[in-house]
């Protein structure tokens, strides 16, 4: 295939993105307000697993909403699979390709019964009933909630609700899913379950963008994007990022617990992941 080099492997392209919220002044007129993102450019490759980190208010959720056109750039552009999110006529092309899972497990399920909620997305897309049934069953199996498909949503734990929300996104058969701090409100067990599902989905070919404030989660991604005050501070592999203490401090973040232990124990800096460190300790 001689033409391979022209193939576009970037699934999402963000160029000079600026998001400025408007506010209402004393006279009731709309005036420019908070600039939440400014001059952000980045690419998300097809099939990759990208983490986005940064302090509270650094613009992570705002960026997430730009990935599927829930927010439209004030300036600059966001392209998803070639579709400009600012183009009204193709917004549903964008949204059906990029699924979203939000932070609060309680506030994103629409229907009372698990399987009916998972069906909500495909129903909106006008998918054929028999096909919806297949997709719902398949999605629930992938997140391990098939046995609970007849349950009431309010009977589930936070982690289970979050898995149902993920199934709701999967059932739309997206190419990419954006997770906005999906584990922030969960207990450690729920967190682990959600992380392992995200990694499974990525292994199955779905591009995953994970916004998180847990560094041990960011560490598992292919790439980490760091935001600070609405600007892109850096965009590196986790190994590069977490070997740079100065950058971590500048971003107002913390080292992953494993790396912290490594440095306090004086282990070699060539060990960059929790697994490597664990192996080293086990071998000693």
């Amino acid at each position: 295939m001689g033409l391979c080099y022209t193939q576009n492997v970037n699934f999402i392209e963000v160029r000079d993105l600026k998001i400025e919220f408007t506010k209402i002044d004393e006279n009731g007129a709309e005036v420019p307000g908070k600039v939440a993102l400014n001059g952000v450019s980045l690419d998300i490759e097809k099939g990759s697993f990208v983490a986005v980190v940064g302090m509270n208010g650094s613009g992570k959720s705002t960026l997430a909403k730009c990935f599927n056109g829930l927010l439209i750039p004030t300036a600059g552009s966001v392209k998803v699979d070639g579709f400009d999110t600012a183009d009204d006529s193709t917004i549903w092309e964008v949204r059906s390709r990029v699924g979203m899972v939000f932070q609060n497990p309680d506030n994103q399920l629409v229907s009372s019964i698990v399987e009916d909620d998972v069906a909500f997305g495909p129903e909106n897309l006008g998918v054929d009933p028999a096909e919806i049934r297949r997709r719902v069953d398949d999605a629930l199996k992938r997140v391990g909630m098939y046995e609970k498909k007849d349950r009431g949503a309010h009977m589930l734990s936070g982690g289970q609700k979050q898995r149902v929300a993920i199934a709701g996104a999967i059932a739309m058969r997206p190419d990419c899913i954006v997770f906005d701090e999906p584990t922030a409100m969960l207990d450690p067990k729920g967190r682990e379950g959600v992380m392992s599902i995200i990694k499974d989905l990525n292994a199955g070919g779905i591009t995953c963008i994970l916004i998180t404030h847990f560094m041990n989660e960011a560490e598992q991604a292919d790439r980490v994007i760091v935001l600070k005050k609405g600007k892109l501070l850096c965009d590196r592999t986790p190994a590069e990022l977490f070997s740079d203490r100065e950058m971590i401090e500048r971003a107002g973040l913390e080292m992953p617990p494993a790396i912290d232990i490594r440095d306090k124990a004086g282990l070699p800096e060539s060990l960059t992941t929790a697994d490597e460190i664990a192996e080293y300790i086990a071998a000693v």
Partner: protein
Amino acid sequence: MIRDITLGQYYPGGSAVHRLDARTKIIATLLYIIELFVVNNFYGFLIAAAALFAVIAVSKVPLKFIFRGLTAVFLIIAFTFLLNLFMVDGRVLWHWKFLTITYEGLMRAFFMAVRLVLLIIGSSILTLTTKPIELTDGLEKLLKPFSKIGLPSHEIALMMTIALRFIPTLMEETDKIIKAQQARGADFESGNIIQRGKNLIPILVPLFVSSFRIAQDLALAMEARCYRGGSGRTRMNEIHFRRGDAVAAVLMVLFLAGIIASRFI
């Protein structure tokens, strides 16, 4: 106590009642409620109660679930009973100072209480045997003819879906807020009515705030899942009239005839 309200709770099952088209069940419930007000004597209530318990038996919903709904509204029933008991003129059975019980009052109070009990059981059977989504789909289809005169049938149905979904969430939220305020020394159990009303403000305000938060989050989540109104939407389980619905219709007519006949006994 808040948790005891069964209205809007589904009891999963595969009985003949569960399998009926939601539209059949909605119409049957409405008819039943109307018929309860047509009934005017003991025989009518006997027929109405027998029919209700036959439906419960077929539905295989445990009685425990059905009566749980009643305990939550027990006060309303008791209040209605007392009001009727003391307010109706007629043959005096018992008299003490300003309180008088008449034969007519006793009958009226008794009938009204039975009526309310049957009404509440009847409507909780509807919600116990019908998935919320089928209930709202059924309602949407029943209201469809009125969309020509501007009734937003899809939106009404969606509002109901969301309300049913978030009633438990908001109740939990209320419980949490009450506990948090009590931990700070708030007292909801004493004082006169005005004082108690005032005490509710620290509950209602946070509840309002969190409802808005939920609404905002949910709207965003729905948009992210490509929600764009009712047109072009499909359903995973389209509701269909089946043979069972025809049987139910025949039974409904028989029941109606029985109720009307009972008035002439």
